[in-house]
């Protein structure tokens, strides 16, 4: 973003402000000096202590001060400063969106719910002190429900950082079924890592024992993996020079920590990224479009408050795409249960209603696909499930 002109305008403000304050200092200095001079005259000039002379000195001082005209001296620098002070906010208004609340729908936005979301966010990010402080201050006691599971997760991750897999293995064993249900082989991966650790630190015999106890249950699904691990036994003590040196890479630890984080959240019924972060990030991306929309809808605030669907698409990055949305290229309708997407025999996809229209509601008569030269039959169209 081009910020240079804004910076220049701001620098002008500070420059004028410095000028103005040094001018004030100067004027005060001048006044002080004049008065001090008058005082010394009064005290040391012989005869000054007599009535007429001291009057004279005071009148002289008065005239002098009027000549200095301190306030009008300040005026010109002050004026320049004022110009700079008005210019800068105007430039800000021009360069930025001066009111981002224009697209805010004035609905009941329950602050209690918002507070719960925030407390969960703090716990999910591992900021337990902050979360506790917030829960206390905002009186969002119910939100503490998430504290314990997230705390457990961070304890596991913390242990993994110091190369201790015990808590992770314990958790994986308790949640073995759920992990399998998710299609995750996290448990095996943890055991693999532990096996390599045992082999490196405690030698071949213990590693073999470990494999017998913990790896054998995975034999049915992961035979190839286990074979590789067993071959590692041959290189005990010099694994780094073996064909299996890759098992020692520290990236395994990082990757596994990430996967554990993901699986842990999933099993808890949470997203692995804080939903608050995700929503705010989507809001930052969507807000500019919404504000443009509001400019067009000016004076239709009422409609904005009540519409059921945004009139324009808000483009978000693919990381915010959580659901398949099919828009019929002919009717531009979003597919729904009543109007599902259908695959034509040529491979193009349209919504059911469009097909009904194109075939003139005659299911036996073939019609031409709008996207290729092929003739297709309604009866051969298949419903799709995304």
């Amino acid at each position, binding site marked *: 973003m081009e910020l240079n002109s804004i910076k220049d305008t701001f620098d002008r403000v500070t420059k004028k402000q410095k000028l103005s304050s040094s001018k004030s200092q100067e004027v005060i200095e001048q006044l002080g000096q004049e008065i001090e001079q008058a005082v010394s005259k009064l005290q040391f000039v012989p005869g000054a202590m007599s009535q007429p002379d001291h009057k004279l000195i005071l009148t002289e001082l008065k005239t002098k001060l009027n000549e200095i005209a301190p306030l009008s001296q300040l005026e010109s620098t002050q004026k320049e400063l004022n110009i700079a002070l008005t210019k800068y906010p105007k430039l800000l208004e021009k360069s930025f969106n001066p009111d981002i609340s224009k697209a805010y729908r004035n609905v009941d936005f329950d602050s209690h719910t918002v507070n719960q979301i925030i407390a969960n966010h703090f716990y999910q990010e591992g*900021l337990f002190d902050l979360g506790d402080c917030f829960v206390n201050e905002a009186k969002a006691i119910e939100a503490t429900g998430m504290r314990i599971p997230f705390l457990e997760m961070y304890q596991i991750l913390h242990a993994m950082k110091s190369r201790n897999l015990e808590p992770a293995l314990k958790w994986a064993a308790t949640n073995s079924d759920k992990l399998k249900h998710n299609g995750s082989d996290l448990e095996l991966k943890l055991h693999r890592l532990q096996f390599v650790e045992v082999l490196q630190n405690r030698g071949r015999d213990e590693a073999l024992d470990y494999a017998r106890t913990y790896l054998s249950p995975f034999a049915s699904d992961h035979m190839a993996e286990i074979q590789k691990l067993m071959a590692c036994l041959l290189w005990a003590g010099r694994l780094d020079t073996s064909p299996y040196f890759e098992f020692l890479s520290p990236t395994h630890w990082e990757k596994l920590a990430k996967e554990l984080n993901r699986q842990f959240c999933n099993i808890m019924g949470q997203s692995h990224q804080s939903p608050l972060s995700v929503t*705010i990030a989507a809001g930052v991306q969507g807000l500019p479009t*919404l504000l443009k929309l509001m400019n067009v809808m000016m004076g239709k605030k009422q409609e904005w408050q009540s519409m*059921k669907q945004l009139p324009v698409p808000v483009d978000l990055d693919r990381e915010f795409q959580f659901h398949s949305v099919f828009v019929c290229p002919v009717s531009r309708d979003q597919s729904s249960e009543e109007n599902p997407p259908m695959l034509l025999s040529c491979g193009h996809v349209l919504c059911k209603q469009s097909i009904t229209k194109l075939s003139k509601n005659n299911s036996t008569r073939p019609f031409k696909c709008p996207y290729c030269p092929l003739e297709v039959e309604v009866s051969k169209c298949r419903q799709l499930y995304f």
Partner: protein
Amino acid sequence: MEVEPLSNGNSAAAAVPNAAAAAIAAAAAAAPSSKLTQLTESLKLEHQFLRVPFEHYKKTIRANHRAAEKEISAAVASVSEAADDGDLSPDAAVQRLNSLVSRLQGLKRKLEEGSRTEHLQAQRCRARLDHLESADMDNLSEWNNTRLKRILVDYMLRMSYYDTAIKLVESSNIPDLVDIDVFNEAKKVIDALQIKEVAPALAWCADNKSRLKKSKSKLEFQLRLQEFIELVRAENNLQAITYARKYLAPWGATHMKELQRVTATLAFKSSTECATYKVLFEPKQWDYLVEQFKQEFCRLYGMTFEPLLNIYLQAGLSALKTPFCYEDDCTKEDPLSQESFRKLAQPLPYSKQHHSKLVCYITKELMDTENPPLVLPNGYVYSTKALEEMAKKNNGKITCPRTGLVCNYTDVVKAYIS
């Protein structure tokens, strides 16, 4: 780009002039959706971020200047008064002048201190400009993280959760990027109003008199009315009348109706059952004053009335909300799979799509020309990547994860989505 009928049985949306809607849609589509444009657009939302510290800075400058002006003219006036005073003895003259000198020295010190404050505040304004400038593609995720923290601090400050605000600022070391000291000013007033104390609020009104007048604020009037009510509540009727003469009468020209209504409480007691007046004695009037003050305060500093968090949350929820979010199999990664988010999104509009966006059920990745969708014989669609991998692992066999159907990889066909 064609103008499509705004459908989905949505009358409110359809009421938007079609041409206008199409114009925005075209603008949205025409803009290169590059990351950089997106970043610039998001930076343009940061008006308040630059405006608030500037207003604070301006306020300090003005206050310092006013103090200097006042003292200087007082000094000049005092000298001319001394000169015109025929009876002033020489000793008294020396004494008076000396006291003037020390006053001017005091002013000098005060201005030096004021200048230091000005300098610090200017630095803060500058730091924010630098922070905006520092956002680029390389540090984006960290920058976005800081933005979320800023937004959260803004929320805490507006909701008066000061402890959390301070803790968050300290732990993330962003003192220059948040407005804690601006809100400290508000905190004093709000704390006082909560214990039914109006003096700090009135002092604040006096401090910002000219600007409040410009925006036709009636906060001061409302505060005065409340003080009057409290006098009536205590049955100090005579005092109440004196108070009304002094502080309420000047507002008569513009706010006669309210004035009449409130002064009529003299005829009723705080125990009145008459609804029109009963409500004036209710304690929630004080909460209302707090709200009024917050609004004026935000207006003065160029802040939005709503916490930034609420604004971004709403925009995000509208952009994310689809009918699919409310289905049982909604992925947990979607914020709208959670009850609390659903509740907040409930009164908000659904998003709209002009183009199909298909997400693979297995990999959760977008299916596009590089990773085209494939159709199983049963009509279920998955991405090429997912099915290829599955076929490789299982000797060319595919198992549909949703129906359990087993088929050959050669049985799947490509679907063309436009």
